[in-house]
């Protein structure tokens, strides 16, 4: 009897202590994020983590540009409004180097997490000065989406090897049939460093252009930039949809899925959506090849990663790390695969996930995505040497302003409001002014 009573009281005491301990350690964390399919999935699955840890999550969902401005302002002022931020490959190294983010190097020692399984390129893109500052949810490069049925009907075979942009323009013109609602190509035209300049930046790389020379002198008035932007404008005017300067990723994705575009060079992360018969009318008529090249094959596919980071101002680092570990772990990807389908698993992050037989079966394009991602090198993305890293962006704080301005100028040239020469001359003046003000050049 006394033994029973002792065991019972011990069990009750242990349970009570555990409850008290979990209550004491239960935290409420705030996560700032964007509104996209992968993050909505995470929001839906997060209660599993909340139940397992006793912690709770406040989600602050914002439009991408608002999120960028809001998180920048909070992190730069040490506001401490957020414990986890969903940020990209552009912000992470800059903010990390500024000491605004909590280093996540301890994940390398966590055998369960298996950081080595995350693609090296992605880890490098989210690091600064040898420290890892964010854990990736999904990563992307760009490749060419094309309509197999349209090319077949036109009697054209899309080459499997990387073609040149000149050849690409010829193919787009050959299948361009606006009278029957088919545009030869749909590309981003909406102004913004993350919109039209993502595509134009890779075209510029292909044509041998670079944003800055080795001494940070802007190169936007170079013949290479002129050739690249002239090519882009001509391509869109000859084979693009009307009003292309208003189309961003979203609009082009909708056009492509609606069967209005024969080709589209854009994010690999859209492949799952385009090949999903429930959301796309061209699911079984779309295939993928590498983004075209021209003078060089370097930097012809961009690199981007959306990742989770912990601001240095967070006071709940342990709970935040626990969520980061869960939400970017192999188990999380498995959970997404089992609940949402393997085609919906965030792509381009973990090797084991991309090689998983269930993933390959559900998403036969997965190996092409991996191949495209692995072919990108942000540290060597241009024909001529540069002092910066980044494919479609330059990893310096000043780039956001410069990229947006150049994007507006290019969009104006596309809309016929200025010539390519004027657009690039304005861009060069602006870039020189900004780089001088920032102290890069005198």
């Amino acid at each position, binding site marked *: 009897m006394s033994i029973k009573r002792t065991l019972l009281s011990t069990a009750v005491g242990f349970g009570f202590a555990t409850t008290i301990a979990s209550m004491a350690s239960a935290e409420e964390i705030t996560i700032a994020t964007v509104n*996209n399919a992968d993050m909505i999935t995470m929001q839906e699955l997060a209660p599993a983590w909340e139940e397992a840890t006793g912690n709770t999550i*406040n989600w602050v969902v914002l439009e991408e540009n608002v999120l960028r401005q809001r998180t920048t302002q909070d992190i730069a*002022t040490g506001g401490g409004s957020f414990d986890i931020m969903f940020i990209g490959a552009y912000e992470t190294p800059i903010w990390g180097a500024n000491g605004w983010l909590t280093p996540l190097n301890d994940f390398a020692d966590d055998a369960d997490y298996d950081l080595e399984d995350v693609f090296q390129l992605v880890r490098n893109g989210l690091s600064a000065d040898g420290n890892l500052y964010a854990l990736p949810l999904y990563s992307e490069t760009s490749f060419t989406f094309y309509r197999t049925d349209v090319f077949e009907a036109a009697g054209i075979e899309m080459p499997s090897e990387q073609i040149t942009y000149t050849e690409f323009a010829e193919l787009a013109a050959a299948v361009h049939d606006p009278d029957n609602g088919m545009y030869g190509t749909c590309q981003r035209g909406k102004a913004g460093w993350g*919109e039209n300049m993502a595509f134009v930046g890779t075209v510029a790389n292909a044509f041998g252009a670079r944003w800055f020379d080795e001494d940070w002198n802007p190169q936007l008035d170079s013949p290479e930039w002129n050739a690249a932007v002239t090519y882009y404008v001509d391509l869109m005017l000859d084979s693009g949809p009307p009003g292309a300067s208003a189309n961003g990723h979203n609009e082009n994705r909708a056009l492509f899925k609606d069967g209005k575009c024969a080709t589209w060079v854009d994010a690999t992360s859209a492949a799952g959506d385009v090949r999903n018969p429930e*959301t796309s009318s061209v699911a079984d008529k779309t295939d993928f090849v590498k983004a075209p090249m021209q003078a060089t094959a370097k930097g012809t596919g961009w690199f981007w990663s959306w990742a989770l980071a912990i601001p240095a101002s967070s006071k709940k680092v342990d709970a935040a790390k626990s969520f980061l570990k869960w939400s970017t772990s192999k188990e999380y990807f498995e959970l997404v695969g089992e609940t949402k389908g393997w085609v919906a698993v965030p792509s381009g992050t973990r090797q084991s996930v991309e090689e998983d037989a269930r993933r390959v079966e559900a998403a036969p394009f997965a190996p092409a995505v991996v191949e495209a991602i692995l072919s990108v090198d942000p540290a060597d993305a241009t024909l001529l040497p540069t002092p910066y890293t980044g494919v479609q962006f330059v990893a310096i704080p000043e780039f956001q302003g410069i990229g947006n301005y150049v994007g507006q100028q290019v969009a104006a040239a596309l809309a016929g409001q200025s010539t390519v020469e004027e657009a690039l001359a304005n861009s060069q003046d602006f870039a020189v002014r900004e780089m001088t003000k920032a102290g890069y050049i005198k």
Partner: protein
Amino acid sequence: MARAVSNRTKTLNTIVAGTLGFLLFFPILWIVVLSFKTEENAIRAPLEVLFSSGWTMDSFSAVQARSDYFKHFSNSVIIAVGSTVLGLIIAIPAAWSMAFVPSKHTKNVLMWMLSTKMLPPVGVLVPIYLLFRDFNLLDTRIGLTVVLMLINLPIIIWMLYTYFKEIPGEILEASRMDGATLREEIIYVLTPMAIPGMASTVLLNIILAWNEAFWTINLTAANAAPLTAFITSYSSPEGLFYAKLSAASVMAIAPILIMGWFSQKQLVRGLTFGAVK
């Protein structure tokens, strides 16, 4: 004397006014239409959206399932009403003194107050953000109430000043001669006479505070976020969210639209007051 207007001119004016009204209202109408469509149907060509696709409440259900609408709604109500009431408490004495006891600098003070509305808000974002951080006001309803009150205070004072100027000073003098104190003069004599004007001021400022989207998004996170933050959470450059964004917008604007509809007489009077002397 009223000018004679022919029936033909009347009809023409009605058609032009109706067309203009419809054009102005069309974006809201289109948001309402899209909110009752699926995401796939919401991106079709306009005629297909209207006639070739079904109607559904799915977007409203999805929005309600993903977001706590009532929390955002109550934050909007508290912030909009709170900032207006707080503004009135400060603005009534200020407008009284400028309307009935003007000094030679009154006009300058009024112009200075109005000039603060011309400053781009983003110019003072960082200082205010730092103040909020240091006073622990970030993501609090009280902090937002104070900021919105300060932003709208010049408009409240200007509107009340214009109303008070219409009230004969002799009536206030008479109350003083009857022994009314300053407080009694303002509360029992001035305020009842200015109630129609104050109602317009209150309505207009509630609408301004309800629709304010710069400070309400920048100074909040999870706890004090009003309906403006609720809308932006459905905006996305990646993926299709037009129907849900429209549903969220309809849910956010419906309360203020209904309020504005029922009080349009007071609103129009408030907005046009002083236009005809």
